[in-house]
């Protein structure tokens, strides 16, 4: 397969394998955190890379590939969640995926247990947020994007991003207090 994407910063074509190796990590994680479901995250990763294939000719080159891919990932995830029906079959939930995956990352058994628990708590907190706030807080805290990068990825004004992040953190404070009670 000779699907290629031009890397505008380096002016060299990228093969599918290079593209996947470079960007699959964040595409999968962003989809996973927003959709909160591992099966959906896999399907969404697939959809994003198919979209990359379809829309590669529309790439303007004005923003970096990563910002563009964040935008495609966010839009694909939100559209997917809108279409998804309630009566879907039982799928692997995020808690199990995170718990197992974090265990694979860690060395110390005590750390593994603690981090797994913390991850599950974070997942519960994120689930309490509205979609638009969740997207912004995931991109900010988990992916480390700046307000400007989030603004480009989500397609809203930078002040809107700031407001959504503020409200998300306020809501997480309230949700955390509720969990601790």
């Amino acid at each position, binding site marked *: 397969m000779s699907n290629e994407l031009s890397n505008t910063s380096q002016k060299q074509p990228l093969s599918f394998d290079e593209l996947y190796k470079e960007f699959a990590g964040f595409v999968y994680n962003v989809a996973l955190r927003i959709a909160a479901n591992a099966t959906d995250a896999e399907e969404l990763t697939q959809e994003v890379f198919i979209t990359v294939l379809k829309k590669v000719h529309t790439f303007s080159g004005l923003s970096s590939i990563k910002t563009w891919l964040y935008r495609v990932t966010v839009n694909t995830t939100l559209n997917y969640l809108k279409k998804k029906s309630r009566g879907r079959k039982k799928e692997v939930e995020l808690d199990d995926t995170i718990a197992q995956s974090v265990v694979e990352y860690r060395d110390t058994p005590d750390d593994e247990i603690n981090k797994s628990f*913390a991850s599950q708590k974070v997942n519960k*907190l994120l689930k309490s947020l509205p979609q638009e706030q969740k997207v912004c807080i995931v991109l900010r805290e988990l992916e480390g994007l700046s307000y400007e990068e989030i603004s480009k990825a989500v397609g809203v004004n930078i002040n809107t991003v700031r407001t959504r992040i503020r409200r998300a953190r306020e809501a997480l404070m309230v949700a955390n207090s509720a969990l601790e009670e």
Partner: protein
Amino acid sequence: MNCKKIKELLLTDYADGCIKANDSADLNEHLLACAQCNAYKEKLFSNVINPLRVQARVQVPSYLQAKVRSAVYVESSKRHSVFSVFSFLRGWRGVASMCGLFMIALILMYTPNKKVENISDEHINYLTETIYGESLQANTSESLNFGTAVETYLL
């Protein structure tokens, strides 16, 4: 600076490391004096911001690459088989082709039909003899009986 403004700064610019120097000085001064805002700041970072930021990335399943590659390949094959016949019509060629077809359709629709001209009397007579068995010229002095007399219908 009041507590509401301090909380807003803590939740946004201060948490993201982009607070302005003036605001930073005012915030620090307020935190030294206000135990409530200080407690809020500690709780914000320990319960919300730090737990999110130390989250490790979830490992992408190893089988996913082959699955995605296969899906991309299938999609790519579909696009090539459906559109390969019409691939030359993309872009300006497609637009030019459609304009050309439209113009041809317009010309065909609005071209007036040519009238039949210069039909001689001989042609008319021939047709009359053929259809009715009588010459139109031979009977010009008499009215032709085509069996349409009123008497024929009435009687």
